[in-house]
């Protein structure tokens, strides 16, 4: 595609500004802004609650040269609210012929350390792009996303070194109208720890983190409750 000008950061996490999806997408968008591209931010799940918001969102999509879709992984796929946004954009683009070449890139994150958990969801986004006349600009899969704690990436220092370097590389590609390079995708999708260590830490500290939150809610003793248990018949 030719030199892009307008970038849409489309955060589709239900947690909006407080989401890890947003902080990752925002870092990439800021890098593009530094390269003199014009960035617009939209919080998709908030906008699609009203007809007016949906129209605004679709207008922003039409206007963009590069769309950054930032979304988390929910139950092996995209959150229902993200799928709803993609359905709406797809319906809109079927009815309106695109007037220019546009590119979609995906920035995903998940609490699991293995990036492979996000492979199917990324394929779904890529299929959406193909069906909606959007060029595919590549996808980033950030594992152990909860460790980011929704804080700006440049405040996390060493922990996000590979991620920020990968996103910076991606911004160079995208600003030139090119898809993200494999190097940028791989670097940004690399864990900040060796996988075996990240898995051990997830099992150990993940559990402690849940217990701490439960304690703050006076729910620690109920963590293993089975409120819908029945004496079930067996086949």
């Amino acid at each position: 595609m030719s030199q892009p000008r307008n970038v849409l950061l489309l955060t589709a996490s239900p947690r909006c500004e407080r989401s890890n999806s947003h902080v990752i997408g925002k870092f990439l968008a800021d890098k593009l802004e530094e390269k003199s591209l014009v960035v617009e931010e939209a919080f998709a799940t908030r906008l699609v609650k009203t007809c007016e918001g949906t129209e605004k969102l679709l207008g922003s999509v039409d206007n963009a040269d590069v769309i950054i879709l930032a979304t988390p992984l929910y139950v092996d796929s995209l959150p229902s609210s993200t799928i709803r946004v993609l359905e709406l954009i797809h319906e809109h683009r079927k009815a309106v012929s695109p007037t220019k070449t546009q590119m979609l890139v995906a920035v995903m994150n998940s609490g699991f350390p293995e990036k492979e958990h996000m492979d199917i969801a990324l394929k779904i986004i890529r299929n959406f792009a193909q069906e909606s006349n959007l060029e595919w600009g590549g996808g980033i899969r950030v594992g152990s996303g909860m460790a980011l704690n929704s804080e700006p990436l440049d405040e996390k220092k060493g922990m996000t070194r590979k991620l920020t370097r990968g996103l910076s590389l991606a911004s160079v590609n995208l600003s030139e109208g090119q898809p993200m390079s494999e190097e940028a995708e791989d670097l940004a999708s690399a864990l900040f720890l060796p996988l075996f260590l990240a898995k051990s830490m997830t099992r150990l500290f993940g559990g402690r983190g849940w217990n701490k939150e439960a304690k703050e809610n006076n729910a620690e003793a109920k963590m293993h409750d089975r409120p819908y248990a029945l004496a079930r018949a067996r086949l």
Partner: protein
Amino acid sequence: MKAVIFNGAKEGDLTINAIEKNIADQLIEEGWNVEPIELRNMQIAPCVGCFGCWVKTPGTCVIDDYGRETTGKAIQSDLMVWLTPVTFGGYSSELKKALDRIIPILLPYFQTYHGQIHHKMRYKKYPRLLVIGVQESGMDYEETFVALVERNRLNFRPPAYSASVFQRGENAEKIPAFVEEQLKKVEVIS
């Protein structure tokens, strides 16, 4: 025996409605109690990712709407059926809004399962899982769709499961045999 059908179709989807009716008819004939749920008609807010169902009211969603009930319906069934138009290779937003809300059937804690990190199970027993996607003609997303169900299987660990795609526009007379084949795969009819 109880089956719950989560129907994620849009209004007027004749193919999915025919598949739902065939599943119900065949199961009822075998003595099953079947509860079809047309998700598009139910008040189910999207999951907001607050984790309240894990750390505030463990096992129960904090949002008080029909989505909360879907958790009980899922775990108290012997067979859970998911019906959906294949949407970019995955589930429709209508089906997914229910699936996102049933995560309290799992624990937040992590374990290694099949070599990867997954959540631990909250309950002792889980229902069998039958998933059918209806795909538009000209589309070829079966591989992605089946792979998605396989990922869900690793999380929900049903004692038996089946994932398949029915092509929209196929002769409707094929539906009963197609449904029968899927019900046999999850070992609920012989």
